[in-house]
Each structure stands twice: as structure tokens, then as C-alpha cells.
């Protein structure tokens, strides 16, 4: 049995653990809307887009958060605008914008050798990279996101559940979409050092999917997904430390294990109740490319 207290003696671990737990709660919370709006691919796409902005910022000597934030928000709006052209599907729009942006980052890295040593950390996450300043940024994004969700809860629920009709009931969907794009971009930027570019999407998708398997109520799903996200990030970071693997990968593997166990348990329960072992899977949103993301 490893000594779980021992790593806490190190400041870098304490900071990494606090950051990971907050990032887990944050991605779990925002992930509920992403999953229910069937935008799962956007988490993957935006993180790649933000990577391009981060590298540009690094090379140009601009603050990481300023460069990545601006780049991410502009990417989200570009995806939105491209999607509005009806000939281009949302999945294609995300693919074009975000892969191009990622390519900019890769191109710059291949020219600037000083960036290369941080490449793995950027892709897969690294708890050593968390500074006290990062902690404040993550805490700020988490608190802001909770406040936004709290005060726009009913409108967000309406827009997520019935986006076509919400405007007819007075929900300002254009404004709310832009706000959501901003919060999502901020979430991805705040999470990137812990999770890594390639792992963020899973941390946004898996906790809400597990929560969906466990509840039929939206408010409960929000709370449960945030809590599960925080717990798997906390556990995942310990695993990252003891197994000496990338923090993002450890957190995602912990989440995936939780998903597997939950699905098996819920399926078994359904099987016992109704004799239909696949009933639990039917609750999950279908994996399909989706309509306008920030309509």
C-alpha cells in the first residue's frame, strides 16, 4: 500500500492535486452541456486549436493565457461561422479550423527547437508544470463557470434541451451561445497544463456520461458529473505520481475505468429488472455530428 500522505510533502504535488481536482470539477460541469448538446468533438477540436495559440504566444513572447484565450475564443467563433454555411457540417467545420490551428503550432515547434522539450507535456499533461499562478487562473475559471451556470441555469437547460424553441420563449440563445463558447474556451485553456491537449476531450465527456447513467434529472447530473470529475482527477493524479505516467493519461484512464464499472453495474441492474442488458446504453446520447454549435 503506497503512502498517500508522503507526496503531499512536495509543493508541486499539492499544487498539481489542487489544480487537477478543480480542473476535474470544471470539465465535469461544462461537459454536461457539451455531451447533451452532442458537441463532444468540440472539446477535442478546441484543445487542438488552443495548442496553436499557445505556441504562437510562446514564440511571440505573449502571456500563455492571453494568447491561448484569444485564439480559442476566435476558433470557437470561426467554427460557429463556418457551420452557419449550410453546405458545411459542424464536424467538418471543427476539423478544418482546429486542425489548421494545431498545424500552426506544430509548424512553429518544428522551427523553434526551444519549445520541443515541452511538447510531450503540452500533449499529455504534466503536474510539474502547475504554478501558483495557474492555480489562481483555474480557480477563477471554476468560480466564474459556476456563477454563469447558476444564474443562467434555466435558460441553459432550455437551450440545451430544446434549442429550436428556446428563442420563442424569450431565451437569448445568441448571447447565451457566445457566453458558453467563452466559458468552454476558458475551461480548455485552464485545463491544458494538467490534462494535455489530447486528453482534455475525454475529461469533458466521460464524467457527464457516467453521471447520465446514474440519474434522469438534469440538476443531479450537473452536481454528480462535477463531483465525479473532481474525484477521478484526484485519484488519477495520485496514480500519475506513483506510476510515473503523464497526469492527463492517468486521469483519463481512471475516468474510463469508472465508466466501464458504472456501465457494467447499471446494465446488470437493468438486466435483472427487465431482462434487457443493453437498456443502460440507450440512455447515452447517440454519437453523431451535430448542428450549429454556437447558434
Amino acid at each position, binding site marked *: 500500500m503506497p503512502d498517500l500522505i508522503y507526496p503531499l510533502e512536495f509543493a508541486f504535488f499539492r499544487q498539481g492535486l489542487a489544480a487537477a481536482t478543480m480542473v476535474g470539477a470544471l470539465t465535469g460541469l461544462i461537459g454536461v452541456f457539451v455531451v447533451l448538446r452532442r458537441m463532444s468533438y468540440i472539446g477535442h477540436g478546441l484543445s487542438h486549436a488552443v495548442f496553436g495559440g499557445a505556441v504562437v504566444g510562446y514564440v511571440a513572447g505573449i502571456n500563455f493565457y492571453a494568447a491561448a484565450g484569444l485564439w480559442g475564443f476566435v476558433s470557437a467563433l470561426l467554427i460557429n461561422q463556418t457551420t452557419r454555411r449550410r453546405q458545411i457540417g459542424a464536424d467538418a467545420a471543427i476539423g478544418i479550423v482546429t486542425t489548421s490551428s494545431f498545424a500552426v503550432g506544430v509548424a512553429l515547434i518544428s522551427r523553434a527547437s526551444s519549445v520541443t522539450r515541452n511538447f510531450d507535456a503540452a500533449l499529455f499533461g504534466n503536474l510539474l508544470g502547475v504554478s501558483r499562478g495557474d492555480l489562481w487562473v483555474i480557480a477563477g475559471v471554476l468560480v466564474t463557470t459556476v456563477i454563469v451556470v447558476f444564474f443562467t441555469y434555466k435558460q441553459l437547460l432550455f437551450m440545451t*434541451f430544446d434549442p429550436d424553441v428556446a*428563442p420563442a420563449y424569450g431565451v437569448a440563445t445568441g448571447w447565451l451561445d457566445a457566453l458558453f463558447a467563452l466559458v468552454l474556451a476558458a475551461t480548455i485553456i485552464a485545463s491544458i497544463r494538467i490534462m494535455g491537449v489530447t486528453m482534455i476531450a475525454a475529461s469533458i465527456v466521460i464524467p457527464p456520461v457516467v453521471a447520465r447513467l446514474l440519474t434522469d434529472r*438534469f440538476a443531479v447530473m450537473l452536481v454528480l458529473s462535477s463531483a465525479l470529475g473532481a474525484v477521478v482527477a484526484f485519484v488519477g493524479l495520485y496514480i500519475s505520481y506513483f506510476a510515473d505516467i503523464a497526469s492527463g493519461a492517468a486521469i483519463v484512464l481512471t475516468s474510463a475505468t469508472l465508466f466501464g464499472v458504472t456501465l457494467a453495474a447499471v446494465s446488470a441492474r437493468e438486466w435483472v429488472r427487465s431482462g434487457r442488458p443493453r437498456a443502460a446504453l440507450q440512455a447515452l446520447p447517440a454519437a453523431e455530428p451535430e448542428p450549429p454549435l454556437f447558434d
Partner: protein
Amino acid sequence: MTEPIVELRHVTAGYAGRPVVADVNCRIMPGEFVGLVGPSGAGKTTLLRALLGMVDVYEGEVLVDDQQVNGRRRPSIGYVPQLETIDWQFPVTVDEVVMLGRATSSGPWPWPRASDRRDARELLEQLGIAELAGKHIRALSGGQQQRVFLARALIRNPRLLLLDEPTSGVDIKTRDDIMHLLVDLNRTGVTVIVSTHEINALAAHLPRVLCINGGVVADGHPRDVFTPEILRRTFGGEMVVVRQGTLTLVADRPHLFDEFDEDGLPDGSPEAAADARA
């Protein structure tokens, strides 16, 4: 003199620069119950959405309560959309759906006010589904689903209620129940506009029908509007009209008969023979 609650003046409207309906003129008075009928793509939904400011209006004016409707101003209208677009696996319960009707008017907190809960409970009781309040929406039958979304519209206390295909995909008994429910609502003073493919349901329940096909083909009592000629112009095909007392029925053209008389009755049918004798 009473002002119309809905007035369309030479309205041309559609989506993304493409008009779906053109030069529509129509006045609907408070307390009326009006049906929109026409083939798929005729513009029924477009007209309903024009009243909500949800489509592009290229020409003319859309007035609700004597005020122009546009994207910025949306009058308090109860709207029940086509339910085919609803994700029935979404984690939401019946009472939560009903409360969405007050999403923008029930204060800043995420939870509903006590008065909202009371109103929702009363509405569900009136609609006969109070026992379903805490149930997930996928547990509902077709008729119950319609009632839940009707409750979401009614919790806004609208003077004008718009329903898009409320009888789509339900059995004949449920369809009849829904139409009676709407008639009862209309008797309380609510103006109701309903679009449907169910011509016979309109003929049986509604005093006024608009036949739509890219515009208004005809407007009047079902007895006057449901004629073979108007139905041909509306649907682009031959349809059989059978009248029995005050009842008007529109049927598919049967394969058994090839010809129709001038009243749209199939030649050789007992009804046509009786008509000829008369």
C-alpha cells in the same frame, strides 16, 4: 371594434433567403380557433414561426396584438412545436419541462418559485397528468407528451396558442382527446392556431381552416373550404369529399373507382348514386 390578435399583411417569409410562403394576408380575431392545413413543405410551420419572429420576413408585416413581430420583440405566445425534434433520452422530468415555460420570467435562481410550482401542478392536474410530474419524459405515451408540452406553453398564460402538428404520430383516440382539449381551451378565451395533416380532425372540430400551399389557397369554414377543387389546388391531387349531414370527410382516392362526379364523389359509389337521385 375588436382588433385582430393576429394580422398578416402581404407577408413573404422563409429561411436563408428562400421564401416558403408569399403574399399571405390573414386576420385572426381574439378567441378564434383556426386550423392550417396543407402538404408537407407548404409553409404551415413557417407561418406559425413567423408569428414568433423565428423566420425571415422578406416583405409585408406580421402583427400580433397590433404590434409588429420581429427577431427582437417576441410577444408572449404559447408554442407547442413538432415533437419529433425532442430528445426523449434527455435527463429531464415532466415538471422540469413544464417549468421551462417560465425560464425567463421566474427570477434569477436556478430553482422555481413556489408560485411556479403551484401553477405547474394545477396545470398538470387540469390536463389530467398530475401523477406524471416527477417522471422522466421517455416514460410518457404520445398523448401524454403532447399534454406536457401543452402545459409548458400554457404556464405562460398566453392569449395566443400555436401548435405545430399536435396530432402527429398519435392514435385516433388520442387525436380526438387532444382536439377536444384544445376546443375546451379555446372556450376559455385562448385564441388557438393549429397546423396539421389531419384534415378530418379539423373538419370535425374547427370553425375555420386555412388551406396553405406556398400561400393561402382558401380561408373559411371546413364545409366551404374542403371541396375537391380547393383540395386539388392545396395538395396537388384528387381527393374524395364525403358529406353526411354536418359531417365532412376527406378521403384518399380509392383504387376501386376511377372517375369522380362534379361533387368529388366517386362514380359508382352509393353516395354518388344517392346524390344523383337527389
